[in-house]
């Protein structure tokens, strides 16, 4: 035992870079929603970038350490404290056996990544330590942390030690309004031209139903479907398709009303038409959106999507170089 949970926060889960390879059985990739912040947190404490960390949403946990360790908190601005004393985010700091890590109120963003030197030790299930709560799989007993849970570390080490920090320009967070770049496609041709235009020009707001499975958006204009004959087996609503697979980041519009963007714990398929997909480079940003955040979808083509992917990777390379 190295960490005792005094209070768990709202929904704090163990996450790494995920569990690819089982989506065809309905088991999603899971892992940190903001993978950029997760990787950087691990770099700061000297872990492998894919080590398991804690993902805390909206509210931080309170953790008592029973061994000395190095900690870094990245992602949302959820200010860390050691025995009540403030510490910097996006920086590594030391915590001694017997001390308590806690957090101030959330200032911006939605999810903080808490990396601890050595990495969280939970069983590897289907290749990953990530939690998939809907399937009661992986992580700490397949669920979010609870009071009095006891976490182990893979090794008791001080890792890279305290005092390392990442420059503000290398931290990546959504703007206000957030801009999510998306590639139209999938069943895009099922909606009217006007609705397609409106989707990208309207300002949307994150709805209260926003979690690891998906983010719902509201406030934009109703999306109209072209009139056409219903395909056999699809169902009676104009937004119904013959149940198919859902890409990560795909944007479905049940009934044409509130778009849902699926995230790391996605339902793997279903019967609602998807009109496009948020590009891989911007998936991290969704994990940092609070309910009511203003959001715009920005239309891109494949070339721009790949350029954005390249830019994100180049930024991570800069972080690596700055900490080397």
């Amino acid at each position, binding site marked *: 035992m190295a960490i005792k949970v005094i209070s768990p926060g709202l929904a704090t889960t163990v996450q790494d870079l995920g569990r690819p390879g089982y989506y065809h059985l309905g088991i999603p990739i899971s892992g940190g929603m903001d993978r950029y912040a997760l990787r950087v947190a691990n770099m700061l404490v000297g872990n492998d970038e894919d080590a398991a960390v804690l993902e805390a949403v909206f509210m931080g946990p309170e953790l008592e350490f029973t061994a000395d360790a190095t900690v870094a908190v990245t992602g949302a601005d959820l200010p860390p404290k050691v025995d009540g004393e403030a510490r910097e985010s996006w920086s590594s700091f030391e915590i001694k056996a017997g001390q308590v890590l806690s957090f101030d109120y959330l200032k911006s963003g939605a999810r903080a990544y808490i990396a601890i030197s050595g990495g969280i030790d939970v069983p590897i299930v289907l290749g990953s330590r990530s939690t998939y709560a809907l399937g009661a799989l992986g992580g700490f007993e397949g669920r979010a942390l609870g009071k009095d849970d006891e976490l182990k570390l893979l090794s008791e080490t001080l890792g890279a030690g305290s005092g390392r920090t990442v420059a503000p320009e290398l931290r990546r967070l959504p703007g206000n309004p957030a801009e999510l770049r998306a590639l139209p496609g999938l069943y895009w041709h099922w909606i009217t031209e006007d609705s397609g235009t409106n989707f990208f020009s309207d300002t949307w707001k994150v709805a209260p139903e926003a979690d690891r499975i998906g983010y719902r958006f509201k406030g934009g204009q109703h999306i109209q479907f072209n009139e056409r004959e219903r395909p056999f087996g699809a169902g009676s609503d104009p937004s119904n398709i013959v149940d198919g697979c859902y890409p990560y980041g795909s944007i479905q519009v049940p009934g044409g009303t509130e778009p849902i963007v699926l995230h790391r714990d996605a339902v793997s398929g279903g019967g609602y038409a998807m009109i496009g997909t*948020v590009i891989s480079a911007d998936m991290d940003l969704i994990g940092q959106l609070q309910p009511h955040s203003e959001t715009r979808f920005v239309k891109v083509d494949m070339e721009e999507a790949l350029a954005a992917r390249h830019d994100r990777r180049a930024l991570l390379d800069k972080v690596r170089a700055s900490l080397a």
Partner: protein
Amino acid sequence: MKTRYTFGGDEHVFVEVDEEMSLEAFFKSLSMTNGVRDKNIKGVTEICPANASFQIKFDPDVISPNEMLAELKKIEATAEHADHTIETRIVEVPVFYKDPWTHETLMRFRERHQDPNGTDLDYAAKINGFDNADEFIKAHHSAPWFVSMVGFVAGLPFLYQMVDRARQLEVPKYLRPRTDTPKLTVGYGGCFSCIYSVRGAGGYQMFGVTPMPIYDPKQEISYLKDFMVFFKPGDIVKFAPIDRATHDKIAAEVEAGSYQPRVKTVTFSLDDFNNDIDAYNQKLEEVLYGD
């Protein structure tokens, strides 16, 4: 039936084999996904067959989207000539139709249903032209089903009945999805049956429950020790009606670790099936129940 290729962002290709559901579309999807698996294409990270479509997830740093597309089109050309024969399993799934648990749940969500004064089964029977629910139940279990997709949540099979289009049952989903569905509910939406692997939200009509678990993340159930998910696309399922006493007996056997689902291996040929559907289904049953 015309194949449509479309990108889901920079990491997925979504391939719609047909807009509408048919066994032909399902077989082509299955055959193409098998082709992708056999070819071991570098950069492919997920191969997901669905009912009449499939999806490939790939790493665009390893294979460019256009190269990925070209590979799939080559595989499609080969799949056109594939004989529609698969080696698969046929599985008996016992179903307690008209059970008290789905009944209790469907009564709680009546205001979200097309027919607030009836039950899901009565409604399904009526709109499919049956005299009563028992006639509908008979149609539901008299012909076998293909597992045409596994997904939505962990281990949930979508099933398509092995009958001609004229005899396909069709039932709409709930007007608004429920927030609760009992675990192991046998449901129906559009032209698909499903078995809810876990308790949770759902929009399919509810007809009964099976006592046979199909997902076990703890891998404690005797027949799920090797792998936590029971079904895979291409499995054939025969629903067998059971009563309350049999339901409870099987549930107790599952608990005791002594229950073994009835499973046989079988070769399925789509061409032979299409030549005489009823006779072919009869033969499949003989494989399942012959010892």
